[in-house]
C-alpha cells in the first residue's frame, strides 16, 4: 500500500538545540498514526515540517507522494491541517471562513459556497453559519476549524492536538467525525497528549521523546511490550517520566 506520509531521518535544530534527531515515520494510506509525546518532544516540529511550514535541516519527507521541500505547493494541495489553536477568523462568520478557505483552495465562488454549506450541515453548524466565529463556543470553533481543513477533500489530514481543551462530550463527537473520515479513506496524522485518544483512533502509535522515536507499534503492542495494562502507563514507562 502506498504511504500517505513517509519521513526518513528528519532532523531540525533551533539555535543549536536539537528538536528532532532523526525521526522516521510512515502512515499507510487510509490509516491513522498517532504521534504521542510529552511537551517539547518534537511533535509540533514534525508536523510543521510535514505541512511545509518548516524546512528540515536533514532527512527527507514525502506527503501524498510529494517531497515537502521540493514540492511544497503540491503537498499543500493534498493536505488539510487542523489544530488546537483553531485558526479561524473570528471577525468572519462560520460560512465566510469556509468560503475563504475554499477560494484559497482554488474553488470557484459557487463551488466554495456549496462546499461550505455541506460542511456546515455535516458539522452541525448550520444554525450558527451566519454568526461571527468569535461568538462560537470552543467546541464550535474546533468543529469549524476541522471543517475548514476538509474544504478541498484533502486525502491527508494533520490533526494537531484536535481535542485539547474540549469537554468529554465534544471530544467524543470529534472522534466520531474523524472515524468517519478515516472510514471514507482519509489518512490521518494525529498528535495528542491524550492516550485515550490515540487508543481510540489510531491504527499505530509512534512515541517521540527528546526528538527521537522511542517506540512504535499498535497500542496493544506498546502495552504488551512495557507490560502495562493501559496505554497511559506504557507511555510513562517509555518516556521515562515515571516508572
Amino acid at each position, binding site marked *: 500500500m502506498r504511504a500517505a506520509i513517509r519521513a526518513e531521518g528528519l532532523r531540525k535544530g533551533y539555535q543549536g538545540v536539537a528538536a528532532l534527531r532523526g525521526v522516521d515515520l510512515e502512515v499507510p494510506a487510509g490509516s491513522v498514526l498517532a504521534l504521542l509525546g510529552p511537551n517539547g518532544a518534537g511533535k509540533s516540529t514534525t508536523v510543521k515540517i510535514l*505541512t*511545509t*511550514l*518548516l*524546512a528540515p535541516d536533514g532527512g527527507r519527507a514525502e506527503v501524498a507522494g510529494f517531497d515537502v521541500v521540493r514540492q511544497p*505547493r*503540491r503537498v*499543500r*494541495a493534498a*493536505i488539510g*491541517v487542523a*489544530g488546537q*489553536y483553531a*485558526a479561524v*477568523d473570528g*471577525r*468572519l462568520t462560520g460560512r*465566510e471562513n469556509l468560503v*475563504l*478557505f475554499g*477560494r*484559497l*483552495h*482554488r474553488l470557484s465562488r459557487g463551488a466554495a459556497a456549496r462546499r461550505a454549506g455541506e460542511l456546515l450541515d455535516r458539522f452541525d453548524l448550520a444554525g450558527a453559519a451566519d454568526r*461571527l466565529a468569535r461568538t462560537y463556543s470552543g467546541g464550535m470553533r474546533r468543529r469549524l476549524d476541522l471543517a*475548514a481543513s476538509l474544504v478541498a477533500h484533502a486525502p491527508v489530514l494533520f490533526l494537531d492536538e484536535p481535542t485539547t481543551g474540549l469537554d468529554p462530550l465534544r471530544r467524543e463527537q470529534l472522534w466520531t467525525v474523524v472515524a468517519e473520515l478515516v472510514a471514507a479513506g482519509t489518512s490521518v496524522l494525529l498528535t495528542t497528549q491524550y492516550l485515550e485518544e490515540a487508543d481510540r483512533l489510531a491504527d499505530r502509535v509512534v512515541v517521540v521523546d527528546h526528538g527521537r522515536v522511542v517506540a512504535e507499534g499498535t497500542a496493544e503492542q506498546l502495552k504488551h511490550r512495557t507490560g502495562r495494562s493501559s496505554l497511559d502507563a506504557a507511555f510513562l514507562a517509555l518516556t521515562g517520566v515515571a516508572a
Partner: protein
Amino acid sequence: MSTVDTLRWSVADTFVLAGRSLRHWRRQPELLLLSTAQPVLLVLLFTQVFGGAVATPGMRYVDWLVPGVLVQVVAWDSAKTAVGVAEDLASSTIERFRTLPMSAPAVLAGRTLADAGRNLFVVLAMLAAGTLVGLRTPGGPLATAGAVALTVAFGYALTWLFTYLGLRARGGEAALAAGILVVFPLMFASSALVPVETMPAWLRPLAAHQPLTAVIDAVRALMRGEPAAGAVASALAWTAAILALAVPLAVRRFRQVST
C-alpha cells in the same frame, strides 16, 4: 504550473484576501466611521484654529492645509497596517494560510490593497469636509482626481513599508509604537501644516527633502492648478522608490517568519 498561471492565481488570491479585510470593516462599520470622522475633524479644527495664525503667502490657509492633512492622514492610516499584520502574525491565521496551496505574497498584497481602498474612502471624505470650510480647487476635477490618486498611491507604498515593520515587530502594540516613531517626524517636519521656510535652519533641508513634503507639494500644485509636472514627478519617484524597497523586504521577511 506556468508563470502565467502562478501570476493569475496570485492576483486571484490577493482579491480573495482583500475581500476578507473589507468584510472585517463591514462587520465593524463604526470603526470605519470613526476612523473617517477623525481626519474630518482634523480638517475642521486645523482650518479654524491655525487659520488665523499661520501666514501662507499668496494662498488662503484652507487651500494650503487640506492637501497637507490629506497626505498626513493617509501616512498615519498606513501605519495602522503594521498593527493588522502583526496581529495576524501573532494569531495562527497566517500559519494556517501557509498550509494552503495559495500564493504567499498574496497575504500581504491582499491587505495592502484593502487598506488602499480604505484610504481612498477617507481621502474623499476629507475633501468633502474641506469643501465645507471653503476649500477651492481651481485646478479642476481632473487635476483633483489626479491629486487623490497620487495620495492613495503614496499611501499604498507606505502600507508596504509598514507591513514590513509589522512583520518585524513583536505584537500589535509594538508595531504601533514603531509606526508612530517613523510617521510622526515625517508628518510634522513637512510642508503639511506650515511652510517649510518658517522652520529653523537645521530642519529646513530635512523637511524640504522628504517624501511627505514631495507628495504634499504635488497635491497642492495639482489642486491649485499650478504647474505641477516637476512636483508630481518627484512624488512619483518617492512612491516608486518606497515600493521598490519595501515590497521585496516585506515579502522576504514574510517568507522568513511564516515558514
